């Protein structure tokens, strides 16, 4: 095994710049790692060795030519299968899109291609990003590389596992209710949900449009900052895209790495640190809070009373939007088509295709959303949920008048065993308790590894939240915390063979 896979993206970028390696060489190293371990991990749905190597060769040629290069040019990346890619299937983990190759690239994919990052492949996910364990993928679950009988989190378990298993130094995920941060926490990786609208959603197959956001999954805070700056910025194809430039994140990460947090006010969210949280997770979280104090931060407790209703609001708004989004999968234009026997009508074909193409969790949410939007119920459900959303935004505003960043554990427990919550949707939904408020409010959030549980030796994440468009604060505090805690993820700790 090449030691190249152990390097962070920033280190790989430096090695490429110094001429110590080539993009082809390090891309091949990652493809070899994928070939060696992905049979066990199943982080990838589609692997594009040929495409990645040819992009790597192009990067090497640019470098040899002295052409202007992005800092990450030549560093390979994995992309969650919910982002459209030309020439590579995009299935969203669903049977209904099996084999669909989009005719266009998502804006973020265009950006990483333009910057010269070879795309290793598309990563596994819960079907249409619905789930917290990647067990709802129609193509089989992803395993947690730390312990293969454990879940890697969801819905972006594939991206997190690929990075945690050293199959890719960087990955793109999407976070609708915590799908980057929660997998990050349970795999010992860094996951970021940027400010809503600061990264284009064009080409992201929508789960819930008002909540979705694309973001980085990496092994270090600095790597996330590098990738976040690359994918961020205004996109005229996304009407909700902000016009504020996404800059200063890498600088903030570097400044944070010095370990000085003097003058930074940190609020511990009272409602997200108590009952319902595993004691081993709370222990690690409390250690992180102590570290923040030692680094000079001013730590206080902050109350956000509306957060207790966030889950309820989320599970009305999300199904409502997704019930509408998923209507386009009608077997008429692309994807799966099931034709029943006899003389079926268009409607019969549609019914049979949707029945066969969608999994249980997807059907559950379509039915929930359809119900929540129905006339006579709209005000009681969807309307009330939107009111809660407004209250949560108010809570954030008030909290951020007192502090610069908020902290909580990312996930209530470490990675649970595969199958443990599969028959209990509510228990599964609880995994995103702490991450959901940020999606409802559009605020940015990061999950940083906080160490490993004293009980099961599995990683625990700490979540930092900042006001809208203040993503840089997350990188500063996150990098400081990361530096003080020290490396959590190492290849030797994984159950996946070295």
């Amino acid at each position, binding site marked *: 095994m090449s030691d190249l896979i152990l390097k962070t993206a920033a280190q790989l970028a430096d090695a490429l710049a110094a001429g110590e390696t080539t993009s082809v060489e390090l891309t091949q190293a990652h493809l070899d790692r994928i070939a060696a371990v992905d049979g066990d991990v199943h982080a990838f749905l589609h692997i594009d060795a040929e495409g990645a190597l040819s992009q790597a060769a192009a990067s090497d040629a640019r470098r040899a030519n002295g052409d202007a290069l992005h800092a990450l040019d030549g560093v390979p990346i994995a992309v969650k299968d919910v*982002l*459209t890619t030309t020439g590579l299937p*995009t299935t*969203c983990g669903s049977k209904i*899109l099996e084999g*669909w190759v*989009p*005719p*266009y690239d*998502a804006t973020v994919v265009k950006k990483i291609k333009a910057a010269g990052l070879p795309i290793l492949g598309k990563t596994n996910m819960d079907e249409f990003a619905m789930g917290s364990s990647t067990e709802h993928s129609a193509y089989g679950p992803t395993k947690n590389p730390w312990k293969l009988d454990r879940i890697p989190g969801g819905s972006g378990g594939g991206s997190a596992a690929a990075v945690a298993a050293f199959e890719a130094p960087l990955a793109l995920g999407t976070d609708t209710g915590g799908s980057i941060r929660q997998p990050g926490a349970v795999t010992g990786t860094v996951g970021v949900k940027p400010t809503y609208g600061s990264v284009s*959603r*064009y*080409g*992201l*197959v*929508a789960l*819930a*449009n*008002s909540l979705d956001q694309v973001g980085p999954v990496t092994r270090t805070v600095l790597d996330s900052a590098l990738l976040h700056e690359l994918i961020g910025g205004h996109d*005229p*194809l*996304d*009407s*909700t895209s902000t016009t504020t430039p996404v800059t200063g994140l890498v600088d903030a990460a570097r400044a944070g790495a010095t370990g000085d947090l003097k003058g930074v006010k940190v609020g511990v969210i009272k409602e997200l640190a108590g009952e319902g949280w595993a004691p081993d997770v709370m222990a690690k979280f409390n250690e992180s809070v102590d570290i923040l104090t030692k680094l000079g931060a001013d730590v206080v407790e902050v109350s956000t009373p509306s957060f207790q209703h966030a889950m309820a609001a989320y599970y009305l708004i999300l199904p*409502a*939007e997704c*019930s*509408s989004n998923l*209507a*386009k*999968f*009608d077997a*008429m*234009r*692309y994807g799966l088509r099931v034709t029943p026997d006899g003389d079926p*009508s*268009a*409607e019969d074909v*549609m019914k049979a295709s949707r029945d066969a193409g969608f999994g249980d969790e997807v059907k559950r949410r379509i039915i929930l959303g*359809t119900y929540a*939007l*129905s*006339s006579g119920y*709209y005000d009681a459900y*969807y309307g009330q949920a939107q009111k809660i959303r407004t209250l949560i935004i108010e809570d954030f505003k008030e909290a951020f008048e007192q502090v610069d960043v908020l902290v909580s554990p990312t996930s209530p427990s470490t990675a649970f065993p595969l199958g443990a919550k599969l028959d209990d949707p509510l228990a599964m939904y609880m995994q995103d308790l702490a991450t959901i408020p940020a999606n409802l409010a559009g605020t940015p959030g990061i999950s940083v590894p906080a160490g490993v549980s004293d009980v099961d030796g599995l990683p625990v994440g700490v979540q930092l939240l900042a006001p809208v468009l203040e993503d840089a604060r997350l990188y500063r505090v996150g990098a400081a915390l990361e530096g003080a805690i020290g490396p959590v993820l190492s290849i030797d700790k994984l159950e996946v063979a070295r």
Partner: protein
Amino acid sequence: MTETLVPFDEVLERYDPAFGLEVHVELNTNTKMFCGCPATFGGEPNSQVCPTCLGLPGSMPVVNAKAVESAIRIGLALNGSIAEWCRFARKNYFYPDMPKNFQTSQYDEPIVYDGYLDVEVEGETFRIEIERAHMEEDTGKTTHIGGATGRIHGADYSLVDYNRAGIPLIEIVTRPILGTGAKAPLVAKAYVAALREILLGLGVSDVRMDQGSMRCDVNLSLSPKGSDKLGTRTETKNVNSLRSVERAVRFEMSRHAGILDAGEAIFQETRHFHEDTGTTSAGRPKSDADDYRYFPEPDLVPVAPSREWVEELRGTLPEPPAEKRARLQAEWGYSDLEMRDVWAAGALTLIESTVAEGASAQAARKWWMAELSRAANDRGVELAEVGVTPAQVAEVQKLVDGGSLTDKLARQVFEGLLAGEGTVAEIVDARGLAVVSDDGALGAAVDEAIDAQPAVAEKIRGGNQAAAGALIGAVMKATGGKADAKRVRELILEKLA
């Protein structure tokens, strides 16, 4: 089921009609409502599409600012209020011509509300209240192959063309229109005509009812005479000519009355209109509980036109058509009847341009309403498309005024123009139409005529000038009608003095 139709006059003895109109107008923006695809009519099927208007997974809409501008101008021209803040919503239902299986439309937050339009029918003015006008996207076009009806049920397969999917639409909805009695069909027609004229003046749409760029749904109900409660309504979809609007109202009134007279209830449903027979037939049942599960479109930011912009757009509005007609009528000195005919023939703008090119209002009316209207009728085209321009009409008239063409010769020039024989000058030249005013050539023809009819010449010599007509006629015949009749008379009288 055979329907008993009650004669129109009898309907009014027992019932009061109420109707409402929903008019869909395709805007003539360069690009579609939510993407950059061309919004032009026609084109190879599915040649003007992209991921967004095809609703492909991951695609997102962006609002066309020009369409918003058109919507605001329409709202202002209809005396409406412009929302300070409004949103798009999703109207969810499954249909193959709708690639996302929801239509992006406006629901409870239309951009225009509370407008009105005054229309005149036989000297009586009716104020049509406009409840709202909202923006939405058009759907694709389906062609159902096989099956007897041409409808989706019973078809072997369907072809879908998404070129039209995503073209910007404005839907203009009236409040129920009451108290029009026997004039209901005419008021309905007059409203659509007035609306069409305003939209044409604004330049926001082609308003071609035959091409579907303007489509009208007619809601109608009857209530027992004197009752203040609205009856159950039917909605006749896609009525696509002014005449059909009138006929649809008339037919539905007769049909409803037949059902009500029999003591039965009207079934709330959509109806299809048949151009050939002027009748309607049952469509699908429609209840007030149609559940489209509207909710605000999360992919689009709200539309919040600034008041400055709205006022700026108000400044771009053309003179309202009714006011403009009154002004022109006064300027041109037309009678009420003449003005009505001109308007009905679609000649108003053409005459206005012809006058602007230097022709008198009377001359302009004469050519457009006689020669050219007849040609347009023969060819079955709009007057504006007959192939003669206002500038050409003015040019011909100038030649008449200058004495180098007679009216009769001018008609021949128009014949040439309609046949595409070239410019006015080329036709006059090629057809040899210029008036013969050369005294030498005319003199010879006059001498010939005098020689040929000595008896007539004698009468004239004897002081009977009226007898000159016979000689003039002979000269005109000899010159192929190209002689200046006034000059011919002068020459005859000179020679026989």
